[in-house]
């Protein structure tokens, strides 16, 4: 039971990639359905609705980012894993990953709903593309804030003597 630290740390990395990824998959899927509907009416709008469809996809990438930083911090990437990591430190990594995991999941889905509305807006008024993007991007702010806290925590934990 001494070496549970690295298990928790890896669980954190996996959670970040998992939950943010699930959120983005749901979100991009939802937006994709709406986008396909618009394209059946007017194939020329493909480029515009594709951009809107991609917007909820960033959370998955942020999740990947957190997972990757964690993996390289604990040495699983790079081949010298810190197997003697204390349980407390492992739990710290797990906690550090949680903001990205949870906020990523929820914000991607909520952002997708804004993106779906934006796609409907663009289908009626293609000139309002910029504004419809901003509505969806507003939601992403919170994913970015979560990403920030996760990054700062993970890089900070590395230098703690535990």
């Amino acid at each position, binding site marked *: 039971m001494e070496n549970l630290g690295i298990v928790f740390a890896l669980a954190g990395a996996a959670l970040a990639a998992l939950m943010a990824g699930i959120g983005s998959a749901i979100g991009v899927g939802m937006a994709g359905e709406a986008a396909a509907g618009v394209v059946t009416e007017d194939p020329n709008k493909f480029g515009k609705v594709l*951009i809107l469809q*991609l*917007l909820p*996809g*960033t959370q998955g*990438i*942020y999740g*990947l*980012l957190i997972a*990757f*930083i964690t993996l390289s911090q604990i040495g699983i*990437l790079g081949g010298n894993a810190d197997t003697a990591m204390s349980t407390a430190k492992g739990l710290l990594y797990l906690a550090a990953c949680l903001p990205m995991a949870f906020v990523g999941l929820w914000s991607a889905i909520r952002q997708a709903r804004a993106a779906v509305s934006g796609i409907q807006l663009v289908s009626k008024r293609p000139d309002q*593309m*910029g*504004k419809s*993007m*901003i509505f969806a*991007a*507003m939601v*992403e*702010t919170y994913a*970015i*804030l979560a*990403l*920030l806290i996760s*990054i*700062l925590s993970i*890089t900070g934990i590395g230098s703690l003597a535990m």
Partner: protein
Amino acid sequence: MAKLPMKQVRIYGLKSHRKAILEALQRFGVLEPISKDLSELGFSKTDTAKSAATFAKAAETINGAVDVLERYAPEKKPLLSMLGGKKMLSVSQYYNTVDNAGRALDIAREINELSKNNYELEADIAKCESAITSLEPWSGLDIPMDFKGTKKTRALIGTFPEEKTVADILNGINEALAGEGKADDPLYAVDVNVLRAETSFTNACVFCRREKSGEIETCLRNMGFARPAYVTGRPPLEEAEKLKKQIKDDRALIEKNSKRIETQTKHRDLLKFMVDYYNMRIEKYETLGDTNQREKFFVIYGYVPEKYCARLEDELTRKYDAAVEIGEPGKEDEPPVLLHNNPFSEPVESVLETYSMPGKFEIDPTFIMSLFYYFLFGMMLSDAGYGLLMIVGCAFLVLRFRDMAPGTRKALKMFFWCGISTFIWGILFGGFFGDAIPVISRTFFGHEVAFPALWFEPIKDPMRMLIFAFLVGIIHLFTGLGIKFYQMVKDGDVKGAIYDVIFWYLLVGGGIVYLLSMQMFVDMAGLSFKLPPAAGTAAAICAGIGALGIILFAGRSSRNPAKRVAKGLYELYGVTSYLSDILSYSRLLALGLATGVIAQVFNQMGSMFGGGPIGAICFILVFVIGHALNMAINLLGAYVHTNRLQFVEFFGKFYEGGGRKFSPFTANTKYYKFKEEN
């Protein structure tokens, strides 16, 4: 950074020159007509809706023909040709083509007719084919399918819903007859022929005596017997032959029609021209319909940018004997807005347009915005490799396709400048396709070549990057406030400028300096310096003055002192929005890291295959696909979030917009553009 000054213009012309003047105005494309009702002065307007509708119908017909041609003989287009823009036509070419255009509508009608005919023939072929399929199981029948029988006999031709043999059918009839005691009556003799028997159906032909046919048919019906759906007056084989011949004829006709359509592709350019021609006429007639006219002359009101006024006046008076009056727009008028900026800032105009054009009394913030736009975009993408690709790609396209549509050209130019900024930030932060240089040199050449950051690597020192991002944010926000100050002073509201801008500078600026003198904040941010306590005290006093000023003066529109202070307190609460605005710039760090780290992931994945030729091939594959993906996603991210920082944080401080974009009376064409000749 400027809005072009607008003049209000009145053009008086003789009715005999009406067409020429309108066409000239349309080619110039510098006048936005103003709708005026002068009926009280004895002017009237012509109803042109009917003619416009006729043109719309013609345009639709020809457009349909162009689509048909595209379907039958697609135009060969080289890659990227959609960037090529519209073909240029001079005025003399224009008039030549218009003179030869009489046949265009006939050609278009013929093409549409042929295409419609082909659709009908194809529908007929489908019908015949399904008939042949349904006749196939009857191929054993050598009498017509609607054969009723002879003088004494009757033929019952039909289908059972399951597999039956001759014996099954005879047994069935016999059992039914036996129930009525007629089993061995020779009057009920039948001749059963099974033509085709399969698991799901049996086609049969049953003969019986004419007077007993009713009873026999009832027996058969009880076994599920039904008449076939498709009945012909010929034996099935003969009918099938006939249908096959019809299909062949249809095919030949389709072939002939298609050939004919293909020979008509030589008129494609003419047809495209005519689509443009009719669309231009529709617009012209709409303007004409709104023109005030009297018996001998007409008058057009419109806005014209000042710099085009002289040339327009000269041209119209010299060539068409028109009189042109140029005046200032009135106080209540809302002239449309046309922006004009230096080549560096111009591309960002389209971003501003996405938000809103500057209002009547607002300045055009494009120049200042463009500086921050390129700066922030580069910081978010921050990879020298990606920046280089953007520079080379955009420069190539802009130089290669000179007739590109103006909107596309602007966008490419914007990404060119963004690319330069991205390249510079990439060098500063040490990113070239992520960490491609160290990884490649380590994997394939055995010794690592570093690509050191000129400044620092954000991933190694995120706190420093975060503080820098906040600093950029504060500068951005304060610049926005500065523009508000300039705007208010320019409008003569100096006091308001002090109350609404200077007090905020004092409060927010003082607050920030005070933080820098606190040990706790300095430790948290990892700063290498700390301001002396005296500076902190001075800053606190400044912030206090600012806060007091806001409380006292922000609610100055209310007379009631209590209400005024209450309003001021509410405004002071707005300081929280500054906090969230500044924090919002943390996305500069997050997005910058996202690009770099994901690029590193792909490089690492690529290098997992080791050195050697196979490793190199795998590495190149992973590298190209991975970086293309990463670049696309992060370009989108940088674009969206730079826009957001401009629209929400920056514009929130000073910009309202609400102006109307200048939309002149011009030729909104699809395929050609027309050049004025001198």
